[in-house]
């Protein structure tokens, strides 16, 4: 029997991941839709993996320039995306601390 081609395997992964994404994202609370968008930006920066291969493993100038530029562009999102998400989520957390001032006082002493 023939082995299924790469493309078919990839298609299976693609469809299943879409399905997982659909169910996970509907569970995201609407209050956190902006952080969701920021963190998905960071996650789609996973193309940095391809960019790293391009920057390091190519030998022509074209390949290297493209690879290095792509690493830089994706890195903006990796760092920017996760950090700005964190910044936003911290804002949502602050209030919980405020409601338990005793705990904060304890940790301070």
């Amino acid at each position: 029997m023939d082995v299924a081609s790469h493309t078919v395997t990839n298609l299976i992964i693609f469809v299943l991941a879409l399905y997982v994404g659909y169910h996970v994202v509907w569970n995201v609370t609407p209050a956190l839709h902006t952080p969701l968008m920021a963190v998905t930006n960071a996650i789609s920066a996973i193309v940095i993996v391809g960019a790293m291969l391009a920057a390091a493993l190519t030998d022509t100038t074209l390949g290297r320039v493209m690879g290095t530029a792509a690493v830089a562009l994706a890195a903006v999102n990796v760092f920017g995306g996760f950090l700005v998400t964190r910044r936003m989520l911290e804002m949502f957390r602050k209030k919980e601390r405020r409601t338990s001032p005793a705990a904060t006082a304890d940790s301070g002493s």
Partner: protein
Amino acid sequence: MSLNLVTMLYLVASVCFIQALKGLSHPTTSIRGNIYGMAGMAIAMVTTGVLIARLISDAGTGATLLLTGLVVGGGIGTVMAQRVAMTRMPELVAFMHSMIGLAAVFIAIAAVAEPHAFAIAPRSMPIPTGNRLELMLGALIGAITFSGSVIAFGKLSGKYKFRLFSGSPVQFPGQHLVNLALALGAVSLGAVFLTNESWPAFFGVVAIAFVLGVLIIIPIGGADMPVVVSMLNSYSGFAAAGIGFSLNNPMLIIAGSLVGSSGAILSYIMCRAMNRSFISVILGGFGGEAITASSDAGQRAVRSGSADDAAFILGNAETVILVPGYGLAVARAQHAVKELAAKLAERGVTVKYAIHPVAGRMPGHMNVLLAEAEVPYDQVFEMDEVNGEFGQTDVVVVLGANDVVNPAAHTPGSAIYGMPILEASRARTVIVNKRSMAAGYAGLDNELFYMDKTMMVFGDAKKTVEEMVKALDQV
């Protein structure tokens, strides 16, 4: 490190990304989710780094280039994340979409130039047809995402004089035909690239995609930007998935399709909240018609009052719901509103915030703006949660919102008929703060403003709310 181990570590990273999204189901779990996301990204990057170290022939140059890109990009990203104002989040997100799009294009170019570096094809052998198709699709989606996001960024920031960046839609006769012709051109050039792997055809496709990205976004009006930003979010995910297909990397496919479905769902939610079909937003229908404001606005009598009057009514209420709109954020009145809510709570008044899905410039924007002003999130309610309560509410305060509380949504034949709204008109008393009687985005007159139980308080949101806070002390 064997390739099997690399693939397993990529699987771990993929699971981390799913966890990152799952954590966002509640504010308390969200920070842990974000840490999962960072861990997943770190695993993916370190694994790739080790893999590269094993394969690399010219270690010095390759590593230098890689680290330079990483440091420069990472530095810029870090600074932006720390400095950006929360009102500017939509622009930042649009900017970040464009980064992904352009990165996808660059990677595709590098892959076409040197497929052996990505193990797509042995050195000096042609790329298999399947991979050619995938590379081309990745580059195409990436290019559309890039140029579309640049236009969206310009429209959102509203600072640039450039006509394509203005909030009002750009339309010209035969627009759809031009788009169709360009798309057909891209398809035929794509076919050429598939048969003979020619560079001109590849660059032709990319160039057409850049133009298409611009043409798709310019006819969409400023009011529809929440949909556009969500849609481009989805595109950027699919661009990543496309690169994953061409590089045969399941992790890229998984991460990309997670993002793709996330963006698609957000677009759907935004479209539903604005009562228009996805197709009509994409084809640039509604935004254009919206400017036709009804001419009798401002001529009918409204009951207007001062901030003191409003404070008096609020002081005697038992339950109050605040309805913030984007006008509130523009006036930077979030802190003043929070103070007002605190003052009312001190007097034993139950205060809730009601948020319409399109209250801000992107999904969930208003929630972030309120969170920044340190409004506790358990006082903030989504439309579906709070709509049943308006009937039992003494006072509703509408701050810088218009269409989202317009009862015309219940009138068949109205332009916004069927749009889900916050039922502010059901409350016993309604206080509306606006700068003027100007119509909202939909260009419609708002019956709510003319009701007997409504009191209009004109003026800048921040100043008015601050006056209410002061006046409350004297009630």
